[in-house]
């Protein structure tokens, strides 16, 4: 009984780790791109948010699965 929620929590943690790395990389790349081309900042920001939202969506799927498993 107690092990399953624990494992689910670890799973959620791993999902967040992945999303963190992914969004971090997106943010870093966007920052570099904006530093290189400040005039394209608006466009880069939009694309960055879309990409971050997609990564986040994948992580949230994992978190929801963890929620289900944890009961």
């Amino acid at each position: 009984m107690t092990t399953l929620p624990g494992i689910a929590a670890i799973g959620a943690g791993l999902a967040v780790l992945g999303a963190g790395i992914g969004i971090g990389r997106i943010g870093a790349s966007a920052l570099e791109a904006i530093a290189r081309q400040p005039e394209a900042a608006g466009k880069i920001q939009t694309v960055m948010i879309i990409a971050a939202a997609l990564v986040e969506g994948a992580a949230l799927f994992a978190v929801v699965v963890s929620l289900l498993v944890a009961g």
Partner: protein
Amino acid sequence: MPAALKTNAFLPVSQLSASRFAFIFTFVFCTLLFFSGKSWASDQSNAEDSSKTGAEEFDAISTILHHVLDNHDWHLFDSKDQDGTLHPVSIPLPIILLSEGQLDVFMSSAFEHGHATVQRGSRAYEIDNHGHITESNGHSVLDFSITKNVASMLIAVLLLLIIFTRGAKSYDASSGRPQGIAKVVEPLVLFVRDDIAIPNIGDQYKKYMPYLLTAFFFIWINNLLGLIPTGANFTGNISVTATLAFFTLLITNFSGTKTYWGHVFTPHVPLWLYPIMIPVEMVGVVAKPIALMIRLFANITAGHIIILSLISLIFVFKSLAMAPVALGFVLFISCIELLVAALQAYVFTLLSALFIGLALEQPATDAHH
């Protein structure tokens, strides 16, 4: 302090009425904050059987769940009797039930917080701890009650109607310049048009503007209302996000062009891959709105859970010294949540526009596929 943040968002409306509005808003906010603190203090015993006066074990998980989920009444705070029993004080909300082809309407106060059975004709209704209403004789019940979430949404709808219909009327007739509230409304509307609709949809954006604008402001204002203490977790409810995502699914697929459906049913792959590719593409059609649904739900619910967990720390540690630390964190997270409220409304609308734009794809633009 979060009150100051929220009132600031409304300040530019108009000088005189804005300051009055800010005052009332701050007053109501502080009152709610005070009462919600009391209700938190009492929740720990509410979670347990209130007749037991002995060990009061605080169950953070069930308390948080109780606040994140929907309810049949709008719980404000609990009051304590002379003999130490707690009475929850809440705003009763209408309950609308459909059972055996009969419509039964009564106020949630009739349940007396789960202690009473409500008799309507031959039907006896009971409510359990999770707010599920069942019929004692085993008949199926359809629940169309005005729950806390529905009530919160109706408030949001009212606010939206007032703000935007007034905004539309606040234009100077001769010069066409925005006046008063339109000075706030117009840049937001133009933001949706110029930064969300036009770049993603293109020339045909006008047809989709009502949906995108309504979705953006509906989600945003509901997110904000959810941040007010004792507020409902409307946009963090899977039914709500599923409904909104379903609208995007419908609009996307009903505006799908030949090219769009061509991608689904005749992808540019060898013929023997079709049995794999077509199901994958069809999953993709459905997965996009499902991602929208999960994203909004999980983001808003996560925000609520974090804030509630931080406040729960005070009761878990049973120490007042924890309060300043927890409140500091709550303030910090609340500021982030204000940003998330707008960001998630933006992301939902942006991705809806993006999916619509993809569905409107013309043959000439897909050279890279």
